[in-house]
């Protein structure tokens, strides 16, 4: 939806600042009360959801123009959605949608960050957001005996995603993930060099047209390949396939499953048995795209109207999407099932988890901010006595790992796949 359609709501923010904090009911430690990395790092009110709401209204009213600083304010934000969860505890408001619309508006007006344009150029040329040669997208699976779709047929498509496919530091993890499925006898295949970007990152950056292109292509590919299920180890891809494609009205019957969900099923069924002890105290970092942003999209058609004078309601009633129904249990079930492993929670978890720093185009345009955000998370992990921070997303693992390098914390950064492999 365009920014103009939200104009009335943009006038209804009351600058309460709840969007800056984790919901107050779940606050537990004064060092970790802020939910929004952007306001924590940049301080001025503009770097909060409320600030961007006000900026949007200012733009619509013609009070301001899009300057470089305006773009910094818009894009120094991971679109992690923490603000959205906190705001919705108090209000019937959609700050995440307003911020997406603001980004799309910037792109429509030709106000783009050069770093993002590079990403989009690379995407257009190579079908991935890392600008790597498309022909090498399947290299990560070299040497694995696995079906290649669509030439061969399989029930399950393993979609690696751009980050896992090209990032050599994650190679062992992604190969391990696929290996776990193969080892469990799952009828699984990959697309190899024919795999494409999900389009999610371009959507978050405001390039809605690029997103639509990849959404349609991927849905068509799954249909042609005849897969019943797409499994991905990437939280971003998962959210894009499950939520954004649905939001965008892409019709398909393919089940979208994150690898942690699939592995948790296999563990429950007894197909995967973790017998080795892993004597490690770990904490779990909820990827935003697997957690709150993966709350299913709720299609709603109706009228927003006023009753009892000015009480604003939806007719028929609309489900409030506030992050509660993301994937939170499957990763935790896996961790709890690993013998010898001690699992401790951080202060900001689940729908109010702190972002790793990578999302929304921040890693590409403001790498220092991404690294700062990740370092904050590592400090939080250390504060609860963890020896390792475990996540379930390639973007998170890479960003947390980079922030952790050489900082003396002595904290390992792992994907759950790595731990499950150790436990087998």
């Amino acid at each position, binding site marked *: 939806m365009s920014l103009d359609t939200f104009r009335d709501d943009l006038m209804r923010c009351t600058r309460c600042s709840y969007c800056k904090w984790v919901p107050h009911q779940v606050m537990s430690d004064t060092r970790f009360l802020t939910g929004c990395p952007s306001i924590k790092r940049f301080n*001025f009110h503009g770097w909060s959801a409320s600030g961007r709401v006000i*900026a949007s209204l*200012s733009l619509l009213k013609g009070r301001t123009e899009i300057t470089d600083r305006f773009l910094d*304010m818009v894009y120094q934000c991971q679109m992690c959605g923490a603000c959205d969860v906190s705001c919705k505890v108090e209000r019937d408001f959609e700050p995440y949608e307003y911020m997406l619309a603001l980004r799309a508006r910037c792109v429509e007006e030709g106000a783009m960050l050069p770093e993002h344009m590079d990403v989009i150029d690379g995407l257009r040329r190579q079908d991935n957001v890392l600008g790597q040669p498309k022909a090498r997208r399947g290299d990560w699976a070299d040497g694995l005996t696995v079906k290649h779709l669509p030439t061969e047929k399989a029930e399950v498509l393993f979609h690696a995603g751009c980050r896992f496919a090209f990032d050599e530091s994650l190679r062992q993890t992604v190969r391990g993930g696929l290996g776990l499925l193969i080892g469990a006898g799952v009828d699984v295949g990959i697309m190899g060099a024919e795999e494409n970007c999900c389009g999610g990152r371009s959507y978050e950056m405001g390039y809605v047209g690029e997103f639509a292109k990849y959404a349609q292509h991927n849905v068509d590919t799954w249909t042609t390949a005849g897969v019943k299920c797409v499994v991905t180890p990437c939280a971003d891809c998962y959210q894009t396939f499950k939520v954004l494609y649905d939001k965008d009205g892409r019709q398909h019957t393919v089940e979208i499953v994150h690898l942690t969900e699939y592995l948790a099923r296999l563990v429950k069924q007894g197909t995967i048995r973790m017998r080795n002890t892993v004597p490690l105290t770990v904490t779990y970092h909820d990827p935003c795209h697997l957690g709150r942003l993966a709350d299913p999209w709720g299609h709603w058609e109706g009228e927003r109207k006023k*009753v009892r004078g*000015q009480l*604003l309601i939806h007719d028929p009633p609309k489900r409030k999407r*506030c992050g509660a129904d993301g994937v939170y249990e499957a990763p935790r079930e896996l961790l709890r099932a690993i013998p010898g492993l001690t699992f401790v929670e951080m202060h900001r978890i689940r729908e109010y988890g702190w972002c790793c720093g990578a999302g929304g185009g921040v890693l590409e345009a403001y790498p220092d901010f991404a690294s700062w955000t990740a370092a904050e998370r590592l400090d939080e992990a250390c504060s609860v006595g963890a020896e390792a921070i475990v996540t379930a997303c390639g973007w998170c693992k890479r960003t947390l790992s980079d922030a952790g390098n050489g900082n003396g914390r002595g904290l390992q950064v792992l994907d759950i796949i790595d731990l499950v492999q150790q436990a087998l």
Partner: protein
Amino acid sequence: MALDRHAYHALEDIVGPEYITQEPVVLDTYCYVWANEVLVGDKFSARPVAVVMPEAVEEVQAIVRVCSRFGIRCRPFASGFETAALTASAPMLCVDMRRMNRIVEIDRKNKIAVVEPYVSQAALFIETMKVGLRPNMIGAGPSGSVLAGTAAHFGSGPTNISTDFGGRNLLGIEWVLPDGDILRLGPVGAGSAAVNADGPGPSLRGVVRGYGGANGGLGIFTKCAVKLYPWYGPPKLTATGGPPNYGMEVPGNFDDYCVVFPGRAALSNFMHLLYEETIAFAQERPGLPFLTVLSTGSNDELYSLVKDVPEEMAALASYSLLISLDAISARELAYKRKVLGEILRATGGEIVPVDEHVRGLLFNAAVTAQGTARAAFRAAGSFIISPVAEESIDSVNAMGARAEEEIVAEARASGKVVAHPPEPVWSVIYGSDGCGHLEVITQYDPADPASCNVTRGIAQKADAKVAEWGLGINLLENALSFEEASLTAAAAHSVDFVKWMKRIKKAFDPHNVAESAFYVSPEP
């Protein structure tokens, strides 16, 4: 209006380039506060010339001196969640206190905390709970600034029956005067030895706060000392469930109730007895309407819940309260329950049955003031408070009734404000003197000009009515308007209050460096 470049460089030298901005869009985020559309007829009030973000009192001092030298007015911002954060003058500098966010000290023995301006109620409560103490909780809720609600603004909230309002909780202050001098009063100046109010020495608390707080109109407060009270709950609260309606585990030594009464007289009688018996941890009116908002995650849910309630039953909702009891022991809680039962019996009140989840919501609302923002803003987008009463319990309840008859009923009939049951008020009791505080609530849609117009009309009518009644305060909760004209009109009915406030302003800020809106100008 642009900031003089010499002034800009002077400010930049103080805070560093990262902590000053003149970017128009960022400035706009500081001149958009709730109710602007009613107060100034637009979402945006006067755009400040810059925003600066100091980290220490010395920086604040230097900033104020630059403002004085260059003829710029300044106003501190804490969370900015208040109509009084309005930017009214030009040129004006916003001083965002966000970086001054330290809890300086919690003195367990003397029950005093010293905090900087950006310490939220939530942050202080989390830390004080660990040592068995708690602060006053203002109605703005957990994100509100402790300093703003204690030293600079009114400070009424659900725990007032056991903590009293903000003005009674101010024990000391670090104050950058409009001429740049620093004044330290009470424990902030003398260390945290036990002190009486803001002593030793003559008290300046009346000057600092006036009636409802100076809202930045007397300079910038950079620290304040606040009173703390015993906390009988656990060192940490435990949330249950998920958003938007997180629940809360209720500790065994707390009880939370919603009670309803057959009418206003019974309600008033009960409020008197509740104050006299000193059993309550928290209390606020209304009970049932607040409970329905707390227990619903959206307006859609709220409407589904209340749409079929018969009008005569809905009318009773006004005469209801939320009450929380706390106790140091099971015996004490049993005693307080018994007393509550007795005074309910004596006044015809009844307890509304609630399940454990809702009880948790009531507990959370009582101890953290969470939910007042939802109750105030979710319905239509915004609200105003007008008129306000600060009198005996009987008087404030009487004013609620008169406001209903002479102001609110007509507005409700227009369909341009949220149609609450009669007497839409929020009200608490102050524990030290049994005074009542009552705010007449109007919820309106800031995006709807007609709704804003009707709301503005309510505020204007309240201005006239409080003078006619000889009861209550006009716009908002400060006894002060942002408009000099309204102040002048109110002066005749204010027993020299406005005159004295102006004298104080003139004595401390003769050149009007500190923004006067929602305070007074020094002009006679």
